[in-house]
């Protein structure tokens, strides 16, 4: 019999530090989102319509055809490419089962892959969030061009990123490849330092 199940180690562990003033005065607040279940969903050949209907029926979410985030309850789908989505379940206790469940539901219309550990997600919010992200993201985040529900696949500091906006605070969530979480955190901290950074876990 093996030992009790080991604790998970999340990608941003040990990489985030606060700089400057308290949370209230901080320009940005960083919070790793370790509780998300993530799965890539890719429509099978000619099955995008069927897949869309399944998603609508199951979750009440219209599958976005653009880089957008469509959400209902704990579930969200983000368009990540033609016929491709990142499916997200909030506060998931069992991330693997999310992908497994989707795979079953979408059998024949969509290919599903668990990415709950492949991507590390961090939440960036606060009054200076736009200023900080502008130091790396080549996408216009001005409210006129980008708002809640919008998403962008791009690159920050040579790291591939998927970013989506949650609310007008503004709050953004950014997914990077897990192995680069440390380098991404380094960049975030260097770029946000002048405004003050609060780090939450």
């Amino acid at each position, binding site marked *: 019999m093996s030992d009790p199940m*080991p604790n998970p180690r999340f990608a941003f562990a040990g990489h985030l530090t606060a700089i400057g003033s308290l949370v209230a005065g901080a320009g940005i607040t960083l919070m790793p989102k370790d509780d998300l279940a993530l799965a890539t969903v890719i429509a099978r050949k000619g099955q995008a319509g069927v897949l869309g209907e399944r998603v609508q029926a199951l979750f009440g979410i219209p599958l976005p055809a653009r880089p957008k985030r469509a959400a209902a309850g704990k579930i969200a789908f983000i368009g990540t490419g033609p016929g491709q989505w990142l499916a997200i379940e909030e506060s998931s206790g069992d991330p693997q089962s999310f992908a497994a469940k989707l795979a079953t539901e979408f059998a024949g219309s969509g290919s599903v892959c*668990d990415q709950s550990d492949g991507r590390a997600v961090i939440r960036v919010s606060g009054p200076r969030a736009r200023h900080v992200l502008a130091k*790396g993201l080549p996408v216009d985040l*001005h409210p*006129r061009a980008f708002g809640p529900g919008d998403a962008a696949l791009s690159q920050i500091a040579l790291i591939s990123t998927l970013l989506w906006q949650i609310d007008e605070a503004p709050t953004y969530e950014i997914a990077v490849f897990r*192995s*680069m979480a440390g*380098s991404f955190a380094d960049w975030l901290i*260097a770029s946000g330092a*002048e405004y003050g950074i609060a780090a939450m876990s």
Partner: protein
Amino acid sequence: MTPLPQSRRLASGGLIDRSRTLSFQFDGKPMTGHPGDTLASALIANGTILAGRSFKYHRPRGILTAGSEEPNALVELRSGARREPNTKATTVELFDGLVARSQNRWPSLGFDVMSVNSLLSPIFVAGFYYKTFMWPAAFWEKLYEPLIRRAAGLGRASREPDPDSYEKAFAFCDVLVIGGGPTGLMAALSAARAGAHVILCDEDFSFGGRLLSEQFVIDGQSGADWKAAAVFELEQNPAVTLMRRTTVFGGYDQSTYGALERVGDHLPVPLPHMPRQRLWKIVAKRAVLAAGAVERQIVFGGNDRPGVMMASALRSYVNRFAAAPAQRLGLFTNNDDGWKTVADCIRAGIKVEAVIDPRPAIPEAFRQLAIQAGARLFEGGLVQDAHGTARGLQSIDVMTSTGRTESVAVDGLAVSGGWNPAVALTCHLGARPVWRDDISAFVAGDTPPGLVVAGAATGAFDLRSCLADGVRLGAEAAQAAGFTAVAPTVPAASEETLGLMPLWKVTGARTKAFVDFQNDVTAKDIVIAEREGFRSVEHLKRYTTLGMATDQGKTANVNGLAIMAALTGRSIPETGTTTFRPPYTPVAIGAFAGHHRGKHFRPTRLTPSHAWAAEQGAQFVEAGQWLRAQWFPKPGETDWLTSVNREVIAVRGAVGVCDVSTLGKIDIQGADAGTLLDRVYINGFSALPVGKVRYGAMLREDGIVMDDGTTARLAQDRYVMSTTTANAAKVMQHLEFCHQVLWPELDVQMVSVTEQWAQFSIAGPRARDTIQKLIDPMADVSNMALPYMGVTTITVCGGIPGRLFRISFSGELAYELAVPARYGDGVIRAIMSAGAEYGIVAYGTEALGVMRIEKGHPAGNELNGTATARDLGLGKLMSQKKDFIGRVMAERSGLTNPDRPSLAGFVPVNRADRLRAGAHFLGLGAHPSASNDQGYMTSVAFSPSLSHWVGLGLIKNGPNRHGERVRAYDPVRRGDIEVEICSPVFIDPEGGRLRV
């Protein structure tokens, strides 16, 4: 030392803050100035005329301009690691504690030994070095070149790492306005009032442009007051971003502009957490270039003497900075604009001794002004020579309209030869400027898409036109960006005339007449260039170095062109055009790098077991962007080979674990997944049974091996492919190409899952025993249930879902266990404790490499982009029954020749010898020469199992030469040993250990 009084500071006026005094040092001399000063204006206020020495002749030089076009007053700013050579004193904002030194002089600025070069100037003409220093050959590097290098080069860079940080940022806007003078301010107001998102940049620390430096009246207000109101309105508008100290230095494709913001250059050191400079990449729907114009010189004898200054610069110092560059001034102007100087001097109490205007007849009002100033007026006159010393000007020789030469005593000379519109940014995409006779200047030709030119940059030099241009073009830009613009009314400003009579060079100068001050190019150099056939403007530039200094010839190029035109009897546009490349003004290299230096040069990828490996004291190695554990030294092991040998022996004798998560992993699903794999791999995969793994190799379309790895079939319509660490992204791109471009009809879905899984190789005779202790009950991993090249899904450690692959790189009984990456840290700890009773070791990439070499598996050193599948012994895998990428081209005669270097093993004949990768193979006794070269060693390792070195290599006809001896010749490491060619598989050639 106490600072000197600001002897040349005017008693009143100027846009400086006299309530605060700033201390600074120039060449060790303490001085003071005020906020609002530049270093140049503060030097002038302190009566300092001499600012630097020239490049070639080490001539004493003063301050010529008041802006970024300055060719003379270059200093070393700051000290130590922050020393900044060649910094234009005219653009340095004064700060308390500033330290500057003059450069290119020894021992001192006032007495420079190298000024003997001036005496040798008859020899040091344009291109002299191309004609000499050729004999004897060896003397160039030893003698001539060091001398030339030491003499050239202006300032000294620091040899310490730059201690400041830099960053980059992106910005997006509807309208980018480049230049914050009257035109730019008006354009920004006009576009902003239409609702457009506007970015307004100016290189100065204060907006206003010439409004700061001239005595203008707009709408009944002073220019400075009008500017303040305009800036206030812009500041109140949230859609407007004002960027002071920001130079838009380059225009790039699709309306992308590069801009440099000097965030902390006006401070002794940048504020905490703040960068020194920030590089902006601005994407603008529309851009308005309102960069103004640069006043140009007139070439006459001694025109480089300290005390000679552009007229507009003189007015800047007087009006904006309240500093008097001269007390008895001469003015040499060929246009009406220069005459503004007289009025301003009268107001400031500077005596104008003489006005020399080459025009045969000047307006009556100017005559009156000259009388009012008490100045002698030389109508139709010319300044032929200026005389003085390093301390300043003493007199000028004026040739009167009647041909008489008169000497006039002055201590300063203001010069205006007209204005060159600042059109550099219109040329960055390749367009050439066009000549306009009416203003004798180049203006923008074709402009880049989305960019319009406004104001003085178009050649409309008068304030009224500038304001009108700004209003109109700002509104048009907003409209083009999708806004409805109501152009504001044009503010009222008085009329101005230019009345320019072109004058490029005064003939009959008796002393050196300079065209390019900084590079010491004289009018005579242009004559020589013409004589020697360097008549094309590019030849002229390259031969004489005209316009190639840090000022890029902003005040010089057109004069040079005009002189060449006169020499060749052509017009200026026939002679050529000036052109400009980015950057508009020089940009610090650090700014372009931003965050990406030191450890942040490139992202670092950490494996799931990194923290654990670090705890174990692992030695890490860069593998592409990954950091991998290279070996795990134990206490007492000081030599890497000892550690690696121990790891290998442990794996071969018991069990070891290695993090192999860095290998690329691609999830491939869909009805046609097998078909796609058949087409990208040389061998077949569609017939692979579910639950099985197969080794595969893929080629590029040119028939060369691209990558290899194992692919497992997880379900009828699902595979997971592994790639090498190095090629993971490349293979993903290749598969997407094959699917999207070549065979879009296939039902295939692919996604990288490299990062999803922590994957550990558990290898060695006790691997199964170790695994058995980790997996949850019910799973059967016996040799029967999970034979070699099988795959199964399991859970480990009480419920962690995983995949177990029975594959081996080491040649031992081995598994690769994949678990979700978050459990990588916990699972490697669990593996280590499960294997403890068997003597498990963690092994790194070195031991991994040793074992793969012992097994003859080709890896990165063999898959070098030039080897074919046959070269690597994989020829038998190449299917004859199907098409695959690279199949046709792999059959070219050059790739099927048996004489190609192909894979073999090598052992030293004297077993004590060490093998070296990179050694070349020569026949025994063959002369070391290229014609005897038979191939080279690709990978070597010390095999602790065999107790000697083993190697892999590519040698002509390798597979058929086992047993033959050759030389491994390695002269760069003084190696030359005898080796025996053998099978590349050194351990367990039958593969029995894999299958137990």
